[in-house]
């Protein structure tokens, strides 16, 4: 077995468009499972893990304090009763959406280039939803009563009020998390089986064997698997659009100036996908470097992500434009004040400028191919976009609540150390989960890559891309 693998390994040379053309079937598994099985863990992994773990502990401390004292530990108070908690919830859930877009929508559109990044993006979705899910539960104030959200047969005979947007949210987010997990795990099964079968030690074979659920790859299973996978993709597509639409209705149903707008659902969905693609780049660029995956994640993938950032960024800009137009057109004094005075010049207005910088100006840099194919530029700009989208949610939530209808209602908001620790802590919890995923699971869909590899043999156009561009992959 080792000889064969070595022989195949030596044939890995060239870099092509959607997958390196000389990757053989064995070497795809070899390369991906080697990261799990053989490769020494890079020192940067341990450093990342240690930092993440330390800050994760800070979050646990902050949450403990929050549970003992109450949500007064946050900077929220009337009138700004929704602060960083809800804002981080919306931000995280939005980040997850690009993962579903890559794995489901691009699958349905038969975009072959998604194959080497879909698993990665699905994991990002799953871990982002896990972060998002914590916030509303903390926001309940008495999180130990979170089960009240569900219609359980209570002796009090009081049931959830399903005509409110908040139970919709609970249904949408829990469905989204569950479906993302099922989709991800179903995709993992053949690859877990491949790791089970190439692991040298018995204990690893046992561990991966348990999680592979006895996958044998018989044609009968493949038949049902293919149908089910496609159907799950078809189900996840309307789901992802519905989730952020429902999240936006948490706001749009309220009368607060700046919230009560019909543009919210599509504009939230576009923003979610926009921020998610930024996060894909933020995670993919370092992982590609650390695990030297230049042959599987080629510049074409990054280029396509940047193009999608440009597209969704333009949609977000259009959303802003319509929002401003409607505020002006409504002739409502509070709406006009909110959009034209409070946001550019009120308290915390700096986030409005960050929002414009990250979401309106920066995407236009992706018109240039030189930017789209420059790793450093992409990485830095993706961080700026993440900040921009976080600021957008800050603007929508905090800036709107600061300036409601009556002057006597006006207030200010600033986060406390608990707010900031929980935000930083969820970022670290996210990277903790992600690092574990990179280390212990096949983070590329090996079976799909093999299938793609085979299709390339039969359909050479898939592999075609001008040679000169590939020079900078290695550079």
């Amino acid at each position, binding site marked *: *077995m080792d000889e064969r693998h070595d022989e195949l390994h030596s044939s890995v040379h060239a870099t092509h468009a959607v997958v390196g053309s000389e990757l*053989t*079937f*064995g070497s795809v*598994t070899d390369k991906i499972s080697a990261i799990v099985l053989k490769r020494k863990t890079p020192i940067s992994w341990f450093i990342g893990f240690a930092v993440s773990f330390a800050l994760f502990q800070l979050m646990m401390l902050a949450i403990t304090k929050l549970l003992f004292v109450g949500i007064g530990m946050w900077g929220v108070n009337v009138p700004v009763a929704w602060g960083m908690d809800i804002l981080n919830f919306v931000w995280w859930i939005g980040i997850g959406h690009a993962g579903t877009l890559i794995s489901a929508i691009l699958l349905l559109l038969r975009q072959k280039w998604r194959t080497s990044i879909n698993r990665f993006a699905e994991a990002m979705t799953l871990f982002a939803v896990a972060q998002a899910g914590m916030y509303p539960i903390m926001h309940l104030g008495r999180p130990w009563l979170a089960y009240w959200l569900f*219609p359980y047969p209570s002796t009090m*005979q*009081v*049931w959830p*009020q*399903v*005509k409110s947007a908040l139970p*919709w949210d609970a*249904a*949408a987010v829990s*469905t989204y998390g*569950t*479906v993302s997990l*099922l*989709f991800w*795990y*179903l995709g993992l*099964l*053949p690859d877990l*089986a*491949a790791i089970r*079968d*190439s692991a040298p030690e018995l204990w690893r074979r046992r561990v991966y064997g*348990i999680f*592979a*659920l*006895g*996958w*044998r*790859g*018989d*044609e*009968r*299973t*493949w*038949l*049902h*698997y*293919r*149908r*089910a996978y496609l*159907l*799950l993709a078809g*189900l*996840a597509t*309307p*789901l992802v659009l*519905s989730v952020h639409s*429902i999240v936006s*209705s948490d706001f749009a149903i309220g009368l607060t100036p700046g919230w009560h707008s019909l543009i919210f659902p599509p504009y939230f969905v576009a923003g979610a996908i926009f921020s998610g693609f930024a996060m894909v780049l933020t995670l993919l660029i370092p992982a590609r470097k650390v695990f030297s995956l230049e042959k599987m994640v080629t510049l074409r993938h990054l280029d396509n992500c940047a193009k999608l950032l440009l597209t969704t960024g333009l949609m977000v800009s259009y959303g802003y434009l319509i929002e401003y137009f409607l505020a002006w057109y409504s002739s409502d004094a509070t709406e006009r004040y909110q959009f034209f005075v409070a946001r550019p010049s009120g308290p915390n207005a700096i986030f409005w400028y960050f929002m414009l910088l990250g979401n309106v100006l920066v995407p236009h840099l992706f018109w240039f191919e030189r930017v789209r194919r420059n790793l450093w530029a992409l990485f830095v700009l993706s961080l700026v976009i993440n900040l921009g989208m976080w600021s957008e949610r800050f603007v929508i939530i905090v800036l709107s609540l600061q300036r409601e209808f009556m002057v006597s209602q006006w207030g200010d908001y600033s986060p406390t150390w608990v707010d900031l620790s929980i935000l930083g802590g969820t970022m670290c919890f996210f990277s903790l989960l992600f690092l574990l995923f990179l280390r212990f699971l096949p983070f590329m869909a090996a*079976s*799909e890559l*093999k*299938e793609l590899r*085979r299709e390339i043999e039969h359909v050479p156009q898939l592999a075609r891309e001008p040679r000169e561009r590939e020079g900078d992959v290695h550079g």
Partner: protein
Amino acid sequence: MAELLLEFDRPEDLARAARELRRKGYAELEAYTPYSTEEVREALPERRSWVPYLVLGGGLSGAGGAYFLQWYLVAYLYPLNAGGRPPHMPLAFVPITFEMGILGAAFAAFFGVLWAGRLVRPWHPVFEADGFDSASVDKFWLAVPADDEPGREALQSTVQSLGALRSVYVPSAVRR
């Protein structure tokens, strides 16, 4: 009761062998492959997946159940006047109905595959074959039923010309 497992290097080799065997009257073939290919699918006896019907059923029961539950809770058991909305308000029930429909369908798809593929079964007779590890990595295996001894000789001579990398007998799986 046994099966003969044949290992092939490429899916087209397996497909050629499968067609040859079917011509000779071996109808119940099964392939074990690292990924799904059209050649292999076309060479094996035609099958249809019933998972889509299960998914439809899961989706409809999820959505129907959710709608009924919402009506039962807020229109029947505990009608509450929230903002003057009528107790039974179909529009407000749409989001949860939709989400639960998706959830039911997704559960049906996932557990349907596990059921259809007879998974969650960490051991299976085919795993006893020497070198079967490659079936999930880069080789393509064909399983031919080899029931009785006289048939086995005929099978052996048929198999000689198929160009398999190796051939192994394993006890056949418990009937599926």
